[in-house]
């Protein structure tokens, strides 16, 4: 099956599942394990839980969905995980964690696909960290919301990846058929993830600024220079420049995004020099 055909069919399947609220949303293995540890610890508080949730885009999205209410619906309010967690409450949150820990992601037989999967997660966290730091260090905007927006900007990728892994398992284990290589795997995700993420965000009524980041127009908003979308757009390019990205990067185009973003957001070279310093260390080990 060609990449185009597989992408098209996958998109149909996923959109149907989203509409029917039957989407399987697994957590990354490391997060699932840590969730179990937290649940076993009677002294574990909201802070420990928040630390877990903020490392996993899917879990963060689910938390936001649960917390979606009139307070968030306007889209103009500050959106932080802490607020969402407080809104949900400990009991409901633990229920969510139990569910999440049981839905552990499949592992591919292809080690290259596993590497790509790992990088998908690391990229999301890296963009979250960078977006928060960009707004915090320039003294503009809502940096905690920027973290969440960065974390969720590619939320469609793990969703599509999980379905691909599910398909791989069925084809290879059940039907003993071959599977696509890591390049095609990434191409399918690249072709489908944006539409799936938007469908998911709209179905779940995620806050409007987050949805804007997920839609990714690829251009900066000159009218609101310190918007979450601009911070995420810039951080996405920085993360790619730093090599924390699964897929091919058009280097010249990416450099243009960084160059424009420096001026749009007002990033001095001093700040730019330090933004990606130590970034790899901060995101390494999240998935293992």
């Amino acid at each position, binding site marked *: 099956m060609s990449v185009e055909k597989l992408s098209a069919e996958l998109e149909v399947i996923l959109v149907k599942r989203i509409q029917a609220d039957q989407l399987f949303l697994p957590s990354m293995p490391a997060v699932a394990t840590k969730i179990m540890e937290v649940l076993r610890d009677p002294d574990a508080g909201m802070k420990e839980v928040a630390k877990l949730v903020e490392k996993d885009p899917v879990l963060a999205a689910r938390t936001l969905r649960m917390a979606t209410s009139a307070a968030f619906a306007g889209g103009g309010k500050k959106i932080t995980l802490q607020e969402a967690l407080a809104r949900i409450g400990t009991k409901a949150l633990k229920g969510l964690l139990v569910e999440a820990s049981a839905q552990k992601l499949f592992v591919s037989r292809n080690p290259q696909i596993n590497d790509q999967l790992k990088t998908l997660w690391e990229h999301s966290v890296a963009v979250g960290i960078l977006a928060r730091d960009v707004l*915090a260090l320039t003294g503009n905007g809502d940096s905690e919301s920027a973290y969440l927006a960065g974390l969720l900007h590619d939320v469609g990728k793990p969703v599509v990846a999980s379905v691909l892994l599910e398909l791989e398992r069925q084809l290879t284990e059940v039907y003993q058929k071959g599977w696509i290589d890591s390049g095609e795997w990434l191409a399918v995700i690249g072709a489908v993830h944006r539409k799936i993420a938007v469908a998911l965000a709209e179905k779940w009524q995620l806050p409007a600024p987050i949805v804007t980041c997920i839609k990714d127009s690829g251009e900066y908003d000159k009218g609101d220079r310190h918007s979450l979308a601009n911070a995420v757009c810039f951080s996405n390019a920085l993360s790619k420049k730093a090599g924390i990205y699964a897929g091919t990067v058009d280097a010249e185009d990416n*450099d243009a995004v960084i160059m*424009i973003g420096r001026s749009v957001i007002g990033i001095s070279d001093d700040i730019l020099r330090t933004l990606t310093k130590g970034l790899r260390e*901060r995101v390494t080990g999240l998935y293992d």
Partner: protein
Amino acid sequence: MPAILTVDDSRAVRTIVGKQVKELGFDVLEAEDGVQGLEQLAQATVDLVLLDVTMPNMDGPTMLQKMREGGNQTPVIMLTSESKRSIVAGAMKMGISDYILKPFKPEELRQKVLSVLQGEPGGADVVQAEAPPMGGGATPATPDPTSGASPAGGRFVDIVVVDDMENVHKKLRSMLPGHISMNAHTSAQAALGACREKVYRVVLIDTEIPDVNSAVLAQQIRVLQPHAAMVALALRTSNDVTKEVREQGFDDVLFKPFRPETVDDFLLRYFDNQDFLQVEDNVLKVAAFSGKADRIERFYARLHGAFPAALEKVAAACYDEVVLDVGTPPLEGDRLPKFVLAVADKSKEFGMSLSLVGPADVRKVLGGYTETKDLKFFGSVPEARAGAAA
């Protein structure tokens, strides 16, 4: 004098840009479009072109293309209200040095013009530029031309505290000796601004500043203050906080809430005993004591720890006489006589005689002890020196 060509169809933009560039000491040439711009380049030597994108007759990208095709490699900064990535990426392929979006702040124009003319990397290249190492001895960052003062030329301050709680500033200030200078900021922005203008010996950063990653802030400040010690301000928890903050790039941790003994240890570590016992020629001067009564013991313990090295320094300079200016120390108990006696004994070991300097109440206390009542005592350092010479 370097010359800059501004190519823009807006007279207002040309005027503003021209004024700011002249303030930097550069000559300014103007052109209304690409055609005029190329004519200017053919007639004059230009060091930098500030180029708009959308203009009548010939737009910026076309002018840039013709410049490069004609072998003109003059640096170009794109100054435009155009932010489409495809257009900027196209211009980057033709070698623009930087990009400024209109409307712009004068600081951004000045900084980018100076950076390009000084040949510094701009844009995405900065991302890969090596940042200074986390340890000491790093090269200072390039001074911000807009700041007006480089870190090296700024005023020296002992400590800067970055903590969103003002009470932390007040508490720490109350526990520091008066001669230790301290700045305090509640936001990362304010701290970064201060670090561009001043030189600090120790930077204290709260590990829980709202909306700021403390480790990143520490890295940023490290660039501006390469020789400062970076100390995390953290709450005491059961976790291994010290290990955690060291992994984040901090040199040390100072725990909150502050305790006298930990603040003293901090001072001892970063401000050395010289601050408590200063040495100048053959004079040892004891710093004023400004703490509470419960810190007197530690004050004297520190003096006992510091004076042997100070005496050794004086002896190494071949002085026969050492002067101990005790200032106004705490007089409770027998701590002062014991300290003075220890200094006298050690001085004798080094072959030096000891003269004391201090106010009358100190003289009275020392006169009350057999071991110290016969030591030479003067009201001032000049008197002590004159007495030694006599």
